């Protein structure tokens, strides 16, 4: 995940890393890292004050850079026995890489009664079965269109391949944040299973290459695409459901569509650095965040999809539709990017720049 304010938070993250070790007492605040910018601001405002009121644990909010930069900082700090943050929100790729290197502290399941409501894929375990993290927030990547250019909403991801849409698309520029391989596999190959072999991945990439003439912008910067989508300069593409819905509610001529094949459900997870000396408090925090009413509060205020089943929350239809959908989602195959990361990245670069 490459979301929101990378540079600002990268600078802050480095500063946090450079901070001297402080001897931790029981009263020291729990350091919780979230992506700098929008996420951190929202958590500071809507989530942490209530948590402190409910548990008496103070929170020191840390702005972390997205994805791998923070993983690198955490693992280097852990080698020196330090934890720039006790609890961190991690993108799935970084979470899995951390799992493989044993970076995350093992948590005591018995002390976290609420995590049992989370679906299995949001309770992360080491191979020996011990829990090391949970799903924190999730969000959808959907098919978005400008309503002036497209009075009718497209119904399928196949619209991306439609010759009528030549030079009209904005797609994310990395295999690991666009999840276009999963989208293509689900749309044309009956599911993501084909991506489990290199041959299969190449077949999917060949299909994906067919839409290249339609792509005007392979974007890294969200702001650039959102602006182009709102003005109709680039009237179709893939983007975040929450942000698009928010823009539509502000009378911008944009819409977000859950295609019939499903939208991509991406997520971030809570993990605890093994160098943390506040695992007890971290468990309280992670347990607190798993409660359905807190998930509902985040859907209302932060715009994320709940990680717990919908019927456990008190979200109204409208509130739920603003952040999620009942349609079966396309789940990214994070493991393939960990196992074959460099190979996929190389083929991907050749695909989109060739």
């Amino acid at each position, binding site marked *: 995940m490459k979301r929101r304010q*990378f540079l600002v938070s990268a600078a802050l993250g480095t500063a946090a890393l450079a901070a001297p070790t402080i001897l931790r007492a029981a009263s020291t605040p729990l350091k919780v890292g979230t992506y700098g910018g929008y996420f951190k601001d929202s958590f500071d405002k809507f989530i942490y004050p209530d948590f402190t009121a409910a548990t008496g644990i103070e929170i020191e909010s840390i702005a972390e850079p997205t994805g791998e930069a923070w993983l690198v900082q955490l693992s280097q700090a852990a080698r020196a026995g330090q934890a720039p943050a006790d609890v961190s929100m991690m993108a799935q790729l970084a979470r899995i*890489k951390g799992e493989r290197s044993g970076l995350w502290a093992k948590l005591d399941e018995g002390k976290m009664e609420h995590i049992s409501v989370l679906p299995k894929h949001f309770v992360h375990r080491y191979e020996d079965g011990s829990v090391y993290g949970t799903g924190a927030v999730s969000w959808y990547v959907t098919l978005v269109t400008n309503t002036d250019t497209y009075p009718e909403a497209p119904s399928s991801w196949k619209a991306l391949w439609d010759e009528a849409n030549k030079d009209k698309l904005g797609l994310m520029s990395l295999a690991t944040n666009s999840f276009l391989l999963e989208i293509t596999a689900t749309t044309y190959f009956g599911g993501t299973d084909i991506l489990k072999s290199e041959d299969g991945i190449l077949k999917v990439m060949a299909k994906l290459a067919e839409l290249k003439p339609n*792509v005007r912008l392979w974007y*890294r910067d969200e702001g650039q695409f959102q602006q182009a989508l709102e003005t109709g300069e680039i009237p179709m593409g893939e983007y975040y459901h929450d942000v698009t819905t928010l823009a539509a509610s502000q009378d911008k001529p944009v819409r977000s569509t859950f295609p019939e094949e499903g939208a991509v459900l991406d997520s971030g997870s809570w993990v605890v650095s093994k160098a943390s000396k506040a695992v007890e408090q971290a468990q309280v925090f992670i347990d607190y965040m798993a409660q359905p009413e807190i998930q509902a509060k985040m859907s209302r205020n932060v715009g994320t999809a709940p990680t717990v089943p919908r019927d456990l929350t008190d979200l109204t239809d409208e509130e739920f539709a603003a952040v999620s959908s009942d349609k079966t989602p396309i789940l990214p195959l994070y493991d393939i990017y960990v196992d074959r990361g460099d190979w996929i990245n190389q083929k991907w*670069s050749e695909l989109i*720049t060739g």
Partner: protein
Amino acid sequence: MSADTDQRATPGWIGLWPALMLVVFFLVPFGIMLAVSVSQRDPAGAFIPGFELTHYARFLTAFFAKVMGVSVGVSLAAAAICVVLAFPFTVFLSSMSHRIQTLALVVLLSVLSLSEVIVGFSLSTLLSKTAGISNLFYWLGLIDAPVAYTPSLFALITGLCYIGFPFAVLVLYPPVSRLDPEIIEAARVMGASGPRAFFGVVVPNLRSAIVGAFILVFVFTLGSYLLPQLLGRSEDWTLSVHITDQAIYQSNLPFAAAMSIFLMLVALALVGLASLAGRQRGAA
């Protein structure tokens, strides 16, 4: 030699200071980059110190040769356009009154304060279909419908030239303004036409300044990684974009470092060739 040294106003050891700075701020970081480029990739972190040439081997493919070609081609084009525009501009500027010269230089310098991001976003709006300059052409009846001029190679080179142009002028301005006007007068008196005097006398006299400006803009634009993403199509992405991808998004620092070293070697080779060419002909 020894007589010279005795008469110099500044003592020789002063030279140690820039030498020290060069070591601390250039050679040491370069050494680190060199070390990183041969270290082992750690997928979960930065890198593991070691010695392997896999990252260099990975670069030696047709794909990266093409990307390198794009980088060098785009920068050469930008440098050539900047010099071709900046040279007559500077010659013209130096014939203006002192006040206008100062004003023009201040305006040019202020352009340097704009970040690449601002230049990129402004140009992408200016060249867009919905709000851009093609609407003016359409209104004037020059074209049938507004069109988008971005992203394209044209937009990218325009952006690079916008940033490179002030540098070219700043390099050219001192020698151009010092050029003795009597040289041109002499040429004209001898019967040379205006263009003949310009190309036969002014240009050769300033050859080394022109080469200098060309090299500066070339090297400067070679490192640009934002404009290719904002204004270029994916096939126009330069090596710098791929380096950023590896360093930031794939956390593959060794490969990013190896690519940077290739980029630097190619830049050095071209700069060497250019200055050699400039010197030889200048001497002749």
